[in-house]
């Protein structure tokens, strides 16, 4: 039976929505703020051991000997795991492209500082860390490759000898008549950019408790898992277990942002459990481990890019060469983030041709992982910076240049040269609103005045598209198979009419439990406080993915609508049978199943569920006594990519324009954000407070990437950042509270018209800040083309000029 998923809120079986579209209180927050949520580090199991990991101090070295005898003699130490065990019991993690994965502990050699070498399970974390000091590892140092230039030089040392090269992938994409548009261009602007390594830093690092059942030869892993099912499949593969022998229990997480995905901690704790007679083993990654070599390093990029324009400012072509330092292999799926820009390569603009020359390189830096936005934030910084350079050269206002090139509202659905189809948008309306909100004219007047006083004041006006609801097909070109990312739920009504929604994911902060409750409550016409959202472990959960790629709010909405529609159909059959009429004569409206045209004849949801569960004699033939339904939602109408990576990948295209005003202190290089304005359009706002929270959080991370954060390595590839003293996460003092408004252009194809918006402002903020900084520097003829635009860097620019 075909299930139609409503794309508009007026298609819901309710006279007026009571919860969707309103900033209702989040149902997950009371437990979070009162500390009753069970984060993994708060859980202890009987007989549990604690894991500590000895990590490599060298970026590249052969392991010539390991002596763990003294550690094993320390009272309280129950098991020690080395590369020898690992090589016997498991395989390297799988990667995309294949064959660039490491074992969970170094086997034979180490490839980056912080790589796990030996792991200990002991009765306390203190003893486990004491034991690490008793372990002797002998290394034979190898020359490291510290950056892509070194890695690609002839005769360079190899990070993975068996590969015969350090180049993970190198290919070009050509979309449209690139050579022609550049040949016919009236103006070409070209710049190089360096985006230094930054990444996710959730409040809670990764943690897990793994228990190997030696009788059943099965594994149960509890922990801070962002994508439990994916993690389960990966563990089955690397630990050589049938997939149904690995159970993942996802606990609530103190944030994720992409940094929770690493498999090593789970594999190590699992094997330590196996080696200590099946006792549960807890591993809590500490912040130094996380910063050194956890899942928090991303986007280490060298760009060379050009924009082709006509004299009137029409942008006709965009070329990008990207060399991306992936670090020591592809275990963290950093490769994917270089492919994601294909989903919105040319941003908000009508650009007829584009070219992408992409080289992914392995070095002896830590492996890279996903980070919120998963690739486009640096790409957007390049495109938007070039737009500003072009505007300056053409003496056009940067806002005006953008407006002239926007995809127009009537052109949607719009297929970008790189293949994805944008569902809808109204970019000019977003721009108009934000310019009004910011009093853009007033800002420019203030800037003119400040410049006359010798002050360096700049304004950034930056537009971006946020691809929402990711699909595997976007990443086919880097070796990820498949089309369609499932998200499954079960909606169950009990005998008293309360509703339980079982999902496959757990809390991470974005508020999807609340979204789920809002949707189910409006569909079934019940109060939100009768809805319970719960997480199913992977052994019983439906196919699902969870958070990632700005998808879950939309995906879980689709899944719930599907399950509710199935329930509605069943309820109509039951009620029709009882009322001796046809199901077509029964409708669901505001929580009642009633006769069309005679609404006083009907039953409440609770009455129908109660009847189904307690009066099987009244059920029609073929209806089970089960007021429950499952539905696995997948983005509609996705397809396989062609040889240039072109496909309908991300379902929705949200958009935003930011206006930011900054001032640079000439003498110290410090940047002060004077004003920050955002207008976004993510279609239907299922919960406006959630959207605002996601935007503000994205601004914080964008401020960090643009001005503060950087994983610094020295020329020998030693990391120089291992604590928050040096990895400069911005605090509430550094992040402006932004002035926000929005436009609503509902998606015509997504559930309830909502577009993915979870990544939010991180797509836009780094570009907006750098553009504002360069606008401030423009009168001096200077440009900063490296992130973060730290005081040291800006002062050096200003100082060298002076």
């Amino acid at each position, binding site marked *: 039976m075909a299930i139609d998923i409503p794309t508009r809120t007026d298609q819901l079986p309710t006279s007026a929505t009571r919860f969707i579209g309103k900033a209702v209180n989040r149902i997950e927050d009371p437990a979070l703020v009162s500390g009753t949520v069970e984060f993994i580090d708060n859980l202890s199991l009987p007989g549990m051991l604690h894991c500590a990991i000895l990590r490599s101090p060298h970026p590249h070295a052969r392991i010539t000997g390991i002596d763990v005898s003294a550690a094993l003699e320390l009272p309280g130490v129950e098991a020690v795991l080395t590369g020898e065990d690992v090589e016997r019991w498991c395989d390297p993690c799988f990667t995309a492209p294949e064959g660039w994965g490491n074992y969970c502990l170094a086997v034979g050699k180490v490839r980056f500082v912080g790589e796990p070498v030996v792991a200990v399970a002991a009765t306390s974390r*203190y003893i486990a860390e004491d034991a690490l000091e008793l372990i002797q590892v002998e290394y034979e140092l190898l020359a490291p490759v510290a950056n892509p230039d070194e890695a690609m030089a002839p005769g360079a040392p190899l990070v993975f000898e068996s590969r015969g090269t350090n180049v993970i992938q190198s290919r070009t994409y050509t979309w449209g008549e690139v050579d022609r548009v550049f040949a016919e261009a009236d103006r070409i602007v070209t710049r190089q950019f360096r985006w230094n390594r930054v990444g996710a830093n959730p409040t809670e690092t990764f943690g897990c408790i793994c228990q190997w059942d030696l009788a059943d030869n099965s594994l149960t892993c509890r922990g801070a898992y962002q994508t439990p099912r994916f993690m389960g499949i990966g563990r089955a593969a690397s630990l050589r277990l049938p997939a149904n022998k690995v159970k993942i229990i996802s606990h609530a997480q103190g944030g994720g942002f992409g940094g929770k995905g690493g498999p090593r901690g789970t594999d190590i704790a699992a094997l330590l459990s196996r080696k200590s007679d099946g006792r549960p083993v807890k591993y809590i990654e500490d912040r130094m481990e996380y910063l050194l070599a956890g899942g928090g390093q991303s986007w280490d990029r060298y760009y060379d890019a050009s924009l082709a324009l006509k004299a009137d400012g029409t942008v006709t072509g965009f070329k990008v060469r990207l060399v991306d330092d992936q670090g020591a292999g592809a275990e963290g799926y950093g490769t994917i983030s270089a492919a994601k820009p294909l989903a919105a390569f040319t941003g908000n603009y009508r650009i007829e041709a584009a070219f992408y020359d992409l080289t992914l390189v392995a070095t002896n830096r830590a492996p890279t992982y996903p980070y919120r936005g998963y690739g486009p934030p640096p790409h957007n910084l390049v495109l938007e910076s070039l737009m500003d350079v072009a505007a300056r050269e053409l003496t056009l206002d940067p806002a005006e240049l953008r407006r002239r090139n926007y995809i127009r509202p009537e052109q949607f659905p719009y297929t970008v040269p790189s293949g994805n189809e944008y569902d809808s948008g109204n970019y000019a309306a977003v721009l108009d609103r934000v310019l009004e909100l910011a009093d853009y004219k007033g800002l420019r007047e203030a800037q003119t005045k400040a410049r006359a006083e010798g002050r360096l004041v700049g304004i950034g006006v930056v537009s971006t598209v946020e691809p929402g609801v990711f699909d595997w097909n976007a990443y086919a070109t880097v070796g990820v198979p498949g089309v369609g990312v499932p998200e499954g739920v079960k909606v169950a009504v009990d005998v008293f009419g309360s509703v339980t929604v079982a999902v496959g994911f757990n809390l991470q902060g974005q508020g999807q439990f609340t979204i789920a409750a809002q949707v189910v409550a409006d569909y079934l016409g019940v109060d939100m406080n009768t809805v319970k959202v719960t997480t199913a472990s992977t052994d019983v959960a439906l196919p699902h993915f969870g958070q990632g790629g700005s998808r879950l709010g939309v995906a879980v909405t689709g899944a719930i609508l599907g399950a509710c529609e199935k329930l509605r159909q069943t309820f109509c059959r039951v009620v029709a049978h009882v009322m001796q009429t046809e199901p077509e004569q029964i409708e669901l409206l505001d929580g009642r199943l009633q006769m069309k045209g005679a609404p006083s004849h009907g039953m409440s949801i609770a009455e129908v569920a109660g009847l189904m569960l307690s009066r099987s004699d009244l059920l029609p033939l073929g209806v089970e006594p089960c007021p429950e339904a499952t539905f696995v939602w997948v983005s509609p109408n996705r397809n396989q990519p062609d040889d240039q990576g072109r496909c309908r990948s991300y379902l929705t295209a949200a958009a935003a324009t930011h206006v930011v005003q900054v001032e640079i202190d000439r003498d*110290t290089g410090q940047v002060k954000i004077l004003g920050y304005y955002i207008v976004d359009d993510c279609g239907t706002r299922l919960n406006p407070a959630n959207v605002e929270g996601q935007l503000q959080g994205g601004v914080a991370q964008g401020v960090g990437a643009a001005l503060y954060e950087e994983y610094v390595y020295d020329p020998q590839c030693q990391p120089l950042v291992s604590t928050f*003293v040096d990895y*400069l996460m911005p*605090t509430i003092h*550094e992040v402006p509270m932004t002035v926000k408004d929005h436009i609503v252009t509902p998606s015509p194809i997504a559930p309830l018209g909502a577009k993915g918006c979870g990544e939010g402002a991180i797509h836009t903020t780094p570009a907006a800040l750098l553009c504002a900084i360069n606008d401030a520097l423009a009168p001096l003829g200077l440009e900063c083309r490296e992130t973060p635009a730290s*005081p*040291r860097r800006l002062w*050096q620019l200003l*100082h060298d000029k002076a």
Partner: protein
Amino acid sequence: MKPAPFEYHAPTSIADAVTLLARLEDEGCDAKILAGGQSLMPMLAMRVARPDALVDLRRVPGLDHIRLQDGHIAIGAMASKRAAELSELVRERQPLFHAATRLVGHQQIRNRGSVGGSFAHADPASEYPAVALVLDMEMVATGPDGERVIPAAEFFVTYMTTALEPGEILTEVRMPVLPAGTGWAIQEITRRSGDLALAGIALTLRIEAGRCTDARIAAFGIDATAVRLGEAEEALRGAAPNGESFARAGAIAAASLADPMSCIHASAEYRRHLVGTLLERALAEAAARAH
């Protein structure tokens, strides 16, 4: 990030604490005093500090006073920075120390961190040692032979090293009240609010009859200890308090620095430049307060 094993002691009087330290020293035991723990605890967790024993002062009474005594302000070593920040006495009578306190970390850190701890820890990028040099503060150390008073100029020896002997406990810091009409300022450059300074300047300035008569200036965050900037002080003596002389003092100060520190956030050259800029700005700020 768990500390290496250590003995834990929590004496309940200063006499007991001193006796305990002497015993531990006799036993060859490396003891460390724990006050607010805002620097020591992370260092223990990272196993950067690995003392054999910790002597926790939190149960020792009588170390948290903030009072006017004999014409100066005395602050007990265990008084929290937050208490100093909230003290009317400190705010009104020694505004430079008050302003410096507000620059230390964030409020949560100032709630736990002790005033004495920052002096004993002697981080060269922290504000207090520089203020101590400017104000000629005195440190009171209590040891087996009783109390001794150490002038600030002798207290800070080098990087995180003070003149305190192993058996001594810093029990009080003393500072003069700021004479009426004295200008003062503290300015620093940090990467984020509450961070340790990349460079900072603390100073007092006396102006009489339109001339600078006395400037006391210290820089922090640039060398192994806070440093007095004597050449700049000298250059200001007798100078008119204006932008020109302040800029000249800044340039002289920058040029006078021997070998500024360098780190990933600030090169030596950048630090040198910051000292000049900060001094120029701090002098202007102080001059506006002087009368």
